[in-house]
């Protein structure tokens, strides 16, 4: 059994297609681990492997996928980590989930997350926090914390999450796995319960870069149901680079200063990884992203503003929680939303509502949009000189549960290094680059829009050189608890 779990998704798919292992057997192995999960990574686990449906001959071979709770899955709870959607079973399936299923990756389970993807620690879930498989007293990161923890713990071969301002990359970093935030528009958002529509993107969380490329290849494409989705230019080939010859890496000194609060251990690991990249043939130079330090401020106006509207539909009228309003409509609305939403969601709805208010719109939302444009211009200028931007994914490693709960600003700072790419709509990948005090550190590469193939290739070369060992949580952090 454990042998099956040791395979990466790409390896497993290969073996199934070759007839060496059975898809049902693989599904069952993961299903058992997911069902026995003690990290609270799953909010729902499939009861049985799907009927034989020809997956074995499909590109993803029947390797099951864990799906973040906020993706709508027909007939299966899709609650976005919120009490207001407790038990909600949508009548339709998100495009990305349907595409993966069509390519031969059936649904293994739904993974826990911060409520409506608002959080960086997965502590904002109505269904309880997720524990980090490397250290159960610590957070897995967020908001795709369940997906990251499940993959790291070997209770899922791979998973999908969403990244609005770091929600794939940061938990991937904190859990020692690979996380790819694609170019905005590369993957359909149809069926993703929205947090901030202009930023939300689905992406893979995987054990290695090859898996990320394989999964991403089957997620992309224009969807008639999502007007913001785009035809992906070109193919995503399996990454094969073994060096970084000729690759120019820019290190944005505007983000690596004291303001970003990068921990010494993370900084040390980052420097070491840069040195490794240099050995592989990359050139490394400082670069400027002068507006990037304002990204977090702009993000915390734009994202809550969009969220305040996106979350207005949870009003108790048609689905989800309804708290009786004693015959009064407004009372029903306010009681339902008072009881249904957690504190962080309420905080952001209020922030966003305020930012859009008449008289404040220009000063807050309007200014934030201008900053966003400037940041995108900064990146464009930087990519004229550099192939990729290199920066730590998160300023810190996994922190202790509860450590930042009372200080929202400290929590928001976790995304200081991830948010600029989100605002610019460009792709970024986080790969595990080593340990600091026994906890994983993430190394982030960002490239121009639709540069995922090159980005994955570069990440692949680095990954080979780093030789990160993610095996420990799979044996003692997963379902078989110590």
């Amino acid at each position, binding site marked *: 059994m454990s042998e099956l779990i040791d395979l990466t998704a790409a390896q497993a798919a290969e073996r199934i297609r070759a007839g060496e292992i059975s898809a049902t057997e693989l599904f069952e192995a993961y299903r058992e681990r997911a069902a026995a999960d003690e990290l609270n990574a799953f909010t729902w686990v499939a009861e049985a492997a799907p009927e034989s449906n020809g997956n074995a001959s499909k590109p993803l071979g029947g390797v099951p996928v864990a799906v973040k709770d906020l993706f709508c899955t027909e007939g299966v709870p899709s609650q976005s980590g919120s009490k207001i*959607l407790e038990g909600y079973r949508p009548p339709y399936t998100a495009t990305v989930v349907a595409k993966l299923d069509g390519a031969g990756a059936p649904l293994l389970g739904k993974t826990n997350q911060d409520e409506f993807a608002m959080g960086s620690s997965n502590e904002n879930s109505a269904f309880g926090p997720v524990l980090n498989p490397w250290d159960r007293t610590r957070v897995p990161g967020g908001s795709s914390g369940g997906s990251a923890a499940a993959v790291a713990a070997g209770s899922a071969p791979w998973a999908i999450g969403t990244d609005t301002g770091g929600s794939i990359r940061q938990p991937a970093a904190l859990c020692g796995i690979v996380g790819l935030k694609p170019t905005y528009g590369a993957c359909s958002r149809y069926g993703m319960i929205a947090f901030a529509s202009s930023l939300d993107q689905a992406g893979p969380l995987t054990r290695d870069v090859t898996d990320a490329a394989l999964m991403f290849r089957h997620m992309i494409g224009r969807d008639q149901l999502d007007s913001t989705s785009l035809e992906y230019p070109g193919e995503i080939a399996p990454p094969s680079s073994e060096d970084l010859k000729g690759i120019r890496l820019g290190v944005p000194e505007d983000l690596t200063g004291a303001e970003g609060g990068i921990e010494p251990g993370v900084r040390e690991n980052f420097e070491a990884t840069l040195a490794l990249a240099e050995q592989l043939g990359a050139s490394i130079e400082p670069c400027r992203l002068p507006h990037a330090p304002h990204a977090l401020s702009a993000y915390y106006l734009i994202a809550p503003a969009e969220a*305040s509207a996106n979350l207005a539909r949870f009003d108790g009228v048609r*689905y989800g929680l309804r708290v009786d309003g004693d015959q009064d409509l407004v009372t029903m*609305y306010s009681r339902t939303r008072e009881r249904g939403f957690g504190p962080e969601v309420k905080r952001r709805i209020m922030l966003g509502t305020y930012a859009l208010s008449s008289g404040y719109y220009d000063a807050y939302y309007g200014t934030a949009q201008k900053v966003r444009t400037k940041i995108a211009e900064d990146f464009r200028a930087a990519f004229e000189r550099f192939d990729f931007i290199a920066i730590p994914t998160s300023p810190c490693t996994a922190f202790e549960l509860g450590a930042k709960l009372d200080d929202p600003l400290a929590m928001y700072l976790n995304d200081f290094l991830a948010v600029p790419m989100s605002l610019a709509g460009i792709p970024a990948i986080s790969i595990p680059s080593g340990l600091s005090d026994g906890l994983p550190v993430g190394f982030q590469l960002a490239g121009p829009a639709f540069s995922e193939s090159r980005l994955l290739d570069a990440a692949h070369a680095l990954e080979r050189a780093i030789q990160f060992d993610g095996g420990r949580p799979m044996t003692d952090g997963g379902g078989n608890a110590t």
Partner: protein
Amino acid sequence: MTAYEPVIGLEIHVQLDTRTKMFCGCELSFNDPPNIHTCPTCLGLPGALPVVNERAIHFGIMIGLALGCEIAERSLFHRKNYFYPDLPKGYQISQYDVPLCLGGRLGDVRIHRVHLEEDAAKLNHLGASGRIHGSDRSWVDFNRGGTPLVEIVTEPDIRSPEQAREWLILLRTTLRQLGVSDVDMSQGSLRCDANVSIRRTGTSELGTKTELKNMNSFAYLERGVKAEIERQRRLLETGEEVEQETLHYDPATDSLTPLRSKEEAHDYRYFPEPDLVPLVVGEEMLAAARADMPAELPAERAERFERELGLHADTARLFAFRAELGDYFERALGAAGSQGNGGLEPAELSNWIPPLVERIGSDADPSSSNVTPESLATLATMVKAREVSRDAAREVLTLLVKEGGDPRAIVEREGLGAITGEDDGLAEIVDRAIASDPAAAEKVRDGNMKAIGPLVGYVMRETKGRADGGEITRLIRDRLQG
């Protein structure tokens, strides 16, 4: 008493007659069982996204062209945020500061803007009140939710309730001719709100305006605006002020009751809809809209009737605004031409349409009456040729409406042919008239033509209207003054 001048602007909502809804593929319907034309998008289910209906854009452009607007190359959809059970997303997707069409004119009223949006669902309230407050139970029918709407906003160029009504009829005819909507006020596919203020005649400053709602017929629009002008006049005359508010018109009592006052005015927190890309109207779309435009719109037709055919301005408008009258008139005009019309002027022919309408019922279409355009043309030509007097022709018309047929045959059968001056019988009756009223005859002889009336009347009575009034006048004068 101070003279006041009303200043009126209209806001018109038009349901577009597309096959599907504004942002999803659900079919439009009317009177179907509730909630059968719904999908995740128009129900506002979590994760669902809007996609713009191209046909609705096409219709929107056609309306803009018909109203002489400037069509924006690039316009934006915004979210208009408010909570109500008929609004499943908690916001309406509408257009705000960058609408599809700007400026323009229809008839004598300038157009401010035209934009696209989606309709709300239909709320039904059980219980005595018929409104949401105090109803025992309310239910929502989402069949209507998401119906494409065009909102047309005029400049405050209207100066009387009658003008408001007439202009709205022109707009309806225009839209009907475009084939973009049913434009039926009783079914709500055409809805009109009015902004009303009054000011001292001669001043140019605008007074405080009120917004009138629920005027769901042309007559109610006129009556509602009239009632509001009166209400405002009474307020100003007693030294009170008009309060800016929204008023609900009750046609049963002609009364206006406040819906909500400015204290609870909504802050709609408009912001650009992030789920949609900007609406770009290219040359191709413009050309397609132009190709679908009717050859002549009502306002142009009115101008042609007046300028080229010499119709009276009021008649020209009546025929153009009520296309069925204009169509009938033009067919009769063609028939008169091919009958060899003996110099019948279009204006003379046009004078026969109102008496026909009077006889068939003011809302009826003359084309479906017993009177063919050909027979009306024949009748008018006969009058022109003095083969039948005007009064007798009216009798013939009454018979035509009743039984149809050929006017010549009816004149023959009923013995209604004109008695002319060459007819000895008429000369004899003229003599009798003069003999019957010597005093009047004396005055006419002395040149007092005002006294001729009773003499003419006598002859008319005696000939049962078969003689022409002008002819009779000429005969009497010849006899007395000649």
